[in-house]
């Protein structure tokens, strides 16, 4: 399953860091952060629901970039 989220992040490098952090989160098959359109596209692993995973994704992203926001 694939879902798109609106995000808020200030710098392109931070967006790259968020992308890395999201990819490393358990339950995420792949993640792409689009800095220009301020969107994050997350593909979930089989059997995982966005509700389970996105909390962790947000937590991990906050770790690498405290100023970021994901609108769940």
């Amino acid at each position, binding site marked *: 399953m694939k879902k798109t989220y609106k995000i808020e992040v200030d*710098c392109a*490098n931070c967006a790259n*860091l968020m992308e890395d952090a999201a990819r490393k989160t358990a339950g995420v098959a792949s993640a792409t952060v689009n800095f220009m359109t301020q*969107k994050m*596209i997350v593909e979930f692993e089989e059997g995982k629901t966005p509700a389970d995973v996105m909390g962790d994704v947000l937590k991990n992203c906050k770790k*690498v970039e*405290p*100023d970021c926001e994901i609108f769940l």
Partner: protein
Amino acid sequence: MQETIVGVLLVTVALLAVVLQIIGRKPGSGMTKKQKVMLWRILAATVLLLALQMLGREAFDAMGPAGRFVRLALYLVDYAIIGYDILRKAYKGIRNGQVFDENFLMAVATLGALALAVYENGDYLEAIAVMLFYQVGEWFQSYAVGKSRRNISELMDIRPDYANVETDGKLEKVDPDEVEVGTIITVQPGEKVPIDGVVIEGRSTLNTAALTGESLPREVAEGEEIVSGCINMTGLLRIRTTKEFGESTVSKILDLVENASSRKSRSEDFISRFAKIYTPAVCYAALALAIIPPVVLLVMGKGAGWSTWIYRALTFLVASCPCALVISIPLSFFAGIGGASKAGVLVKGSNYLETLSQTKIVVFDKTGTLTQGVFEVTGIHHNELSNEALLEFAALAESASSHPISKSLQKAYGKEIDRSRVSDITEISGNGVTATVDGKKVAAGNDKLMKTLGVNFAPCHSVGTIIHVAIDGKYAGHIVISDVVKPRAKDAIAALKGAGVRRAVMLTGDAKKVADQVAGELGIDEVRAELLPGDKVDQVEKLISSKGEKEKLAFVGDGINDAPVLRRADIGIAMGAMGSDAAIEAADVVLMDDDPMQIAKAIKISRKCLGIVYQNIVVAIGIKLVCLLLVAVGCASMWLAVFADVGVMILAVLNAIRALFVKNL
């Protein structure tokens, strides 16, 4: 002297902050809350710094021994105002194992400079000013990027806000998402067509500029299909929707463009990899710069000069910030994709824009790409029957086919086709058809078909597609059909050559004679004729294996029959995609218009964009390296370092925005 310059600089920053704060009050300035808060912080820190500088060291020295600490405290407050978030981020970064980022660089550099100043009871100004100018630079970057991001997004935004649905005789505005298939919607003059459909009432002129980039007006009348995203210019239209909003052309295009920059190009990958290696590398280099030279000097028996080298190392850190690169490359691609979509060229990703710029071989499908794909019957020869009778047999035999040639036969025949007269239709791909018409065995097709059937046929001297007709195994004559070359096709080939394309190749299922004639007329280098649909993929593969590694091959087709070839080529370009979903799906680059000139335009846009990307990479890395070198040998102060950093970044961002302007290419 230096005091005056610093004073003027600080006053300028303060005034700028005030002016920007006033601009930020206006609605539509696009300043976020975070940016406004930052402006206040910049203003407060600048004013405090100015006041402290004006007081000077003497005022505090007069207070006795405590004066030194009062002065230090005040400067520290100022430092905290302007830099607390950087310190916090650097701390969090260290705690989370993300040590080397630009926050860390700035925190170490300014704290180090502060420590040196405390030790010497000297000039605190430098550390604070560096932080201040860094923040000013960051602010401009975030504002400029945010603003251009929004501008480009608006430019690409062709999303209709509402659809007019009639309920109880009154027009009501509803969200296009909620309109079901088959609903009657009304589009008034000046409004966007929100959903694909069929016109059931009214006639009007449409402006397709948002889709094709060219404001060629298009007429629609009752019974005709209408594509969403066009603007209704003149008359009131009532439309029965045939698709949901999510499936409509406008949604598809939006989806495509918005996701385009998610597919990253190699240059972007290079930059993010580069940043990952670069930051730790400069940190270690700075550490080395702080330790190795003094130690070497000590060993050689001279004074170590620790503070000089530590200062240089800190300056080195300030100068090394990689922001200019990291920000300007994605922005260039984004602007390039935005500019291209304004011109009616949809590029599905930054990677495709990059490939497109390296295109050296362009392979065309003939029909529908270089020619209009509107065939006309131009002659009927060697027939035993009357012209009309021969045409009738041929049209009936081909009645089940949707091939443009069959269509033109049916059109030339001109009457309703009575399908009940036809049976046993067999289509032989690339050859023709056989069928039973009125009990007679009719075969209609090219030379190959006649040969396989063992019919003696009369070769034709006219140029065009020849449809031989045999009835009950006996030759009955042939029909000549010609396609019309697109008016701008010749100019387009010339423009492609001008844009650096080395070879233009044409693939076609048509007879060699026809293909050669068209190729000669247009200036095409190579022709592969009489291909079956499957052969085109093989031909493209052959061409791909024969070219150099760096050269890319583009295939241009109309997206209807050539999806496999579009996928196989390094880059697939589909033309005339307005309303054709298949083309939008299969291709990497979609030309909304069917004007072949657009191909050259797409390549030129990509070249310009990639040119800007390389300029930014080279200039940013080049200036960085020169600065780092100057710092290492002690020719540059921290001031110069921070100005170089901010200056390069602003230049790179401005240069990136240039990719948006593609009108005169």
